[in-house]
């Protein structure tokens, strides 16, 4: 397991999600001889520069050929390697969707697909590069585990846990450089186990990825308005932590989910699918990106525009709570 210090966390946060992924892989490579990392010509863009230079024998650039990349990864995994593959979110989850379905879903091969730049972090590169629906698609494939780390420390935790975990995974990286910090020091992380970061009495906010930080900030605003909120980091949406949802259903007046992903098929949908089995449960407010192709702009501009910042999240919750 990789050790995490406070100063590491500060550094990773500045470097941002992609570079932290690269650092995590580099740390993993030090003690795993069975590691292989594949990229579809985005090694440099995935923060893997240093790893590629230090461990060239553990890296393969398959070229701009995502479908082939998954197949090659599957072959390596079948022969005992622990394989991480990466590319930008839409390319890995959609261009190679069927290959993921056959190799990682159907054959359950031990490949971890890492989506770089999911959500709207690609800014001016536009919708072709945004990860709007990727969690939804990956979640729908049987045998897949889908994780969206909350911050850079959690990216390292996730990569480390993924290497130990036997089975196919989709790891969705959101956020850019100067990624806000949720975890200031090392902590317990388990795939599939949600983490309650704040305990409140009125409502429960489930969030993952960058929206964990925004939800914590939103909770502060809500507190000042007299609404006491719990905030739960639901980093794993498949398998979803049902107990965390059970707890929210018994203690909260409303449940809120917040994600840098479409409102269709992601965290909100996963929670709703479970909750709908029960009667007399609290209302559920799903906050996420709208079901449309988005305008393009600076990352912060887009988050603001689409309501994925603390002030707007709090506002939406207040309106919903009061009605």
């Amino acid at each position: 397991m990789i050790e995490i210090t406070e100063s590491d966390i500060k550094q990773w946060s500045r470097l941002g999600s992609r570079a932290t992924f690269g650092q995590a892989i580099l740390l993993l490579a030090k003690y795993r001889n069975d590691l292989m990392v594949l990229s579809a010509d985005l090694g440099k863009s995935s923060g893997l520069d240093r790893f590629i230079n230090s461990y060239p024998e553990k890296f393969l650039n398959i070229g701009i050929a995502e479908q082939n990349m998954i197949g090659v990864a599957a072959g390596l995994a079948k022969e005992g390697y622990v394989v991480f593959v990466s590319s930008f979110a839409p390319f890995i989850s959609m261009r190679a969707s069927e290959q993921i379905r056959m190799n990682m879903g159907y054959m359950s091969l031990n490949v971890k697909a890492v989506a770089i730049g999911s959500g709207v972090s690609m800014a001016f590169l536009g919708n072709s590069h945004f990860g709007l629906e990727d969690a939804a698609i990956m979640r729908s494939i049987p045998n897949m585990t889908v994780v969206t780390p909350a911050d850079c420390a959690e990216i390292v935790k996730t990569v480390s846990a993924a290497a130990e975990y036997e089975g196919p995974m989709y790891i969705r990286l959101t956020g850019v450089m100067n990624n806000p910090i949720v975890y200031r020091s090392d902590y317990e992380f388990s795939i599939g186990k949600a983490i309650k970061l704040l305990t409140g009495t009125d409502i429960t906010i489930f969030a993952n990825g960058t929206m964990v930080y925004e939800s914590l900030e939103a909770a502060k605003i809500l507190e000042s308005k007299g609404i006491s909120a719990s905030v739960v980091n639901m980093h794993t949406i498949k398998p979803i932590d049902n107990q965390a949802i059970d707890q929210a259903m018994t203690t909260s007046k409303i449940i809120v989910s917040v994600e840098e992903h479409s409102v269709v098929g992601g965290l909100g949908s996963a929670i709703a699918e479970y909750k709908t089995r029960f009667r007399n449960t609290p209302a559920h407010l799903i906050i996420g990106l709208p079901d449309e192709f988005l305008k393009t702009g600076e990352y912060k501009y887009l988050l603001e525009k689409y309501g994925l910042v603390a002030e707007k999240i709090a506002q939406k919750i207040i309106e919903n709570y009061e009605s």
Partner: protein
Amino acid sequence: MTNKEKYNKVFIETFSIDESALNDDLSYNTIPSWDSVGHMTLIAGFEDIFGINMETDDIIDFSSYNKGIELLTKYGIEL
């Protein structure tokens, strides 16, 4: 600590190098640890130790030990 000592400290700590390596030749990509990740860590180090916020153009132009000295004067840091 003088400004020059602080400047050198950041280089030494970021790249795990010896004081003797701090010269004209020290520039981006000439040593393995001064890659893109190393560069961002270096800049963060200067921002922390001098309490400044560097502009993007300057971050990109900061290509060598000497160039850095020149660029920091813009932020009132005389070395």
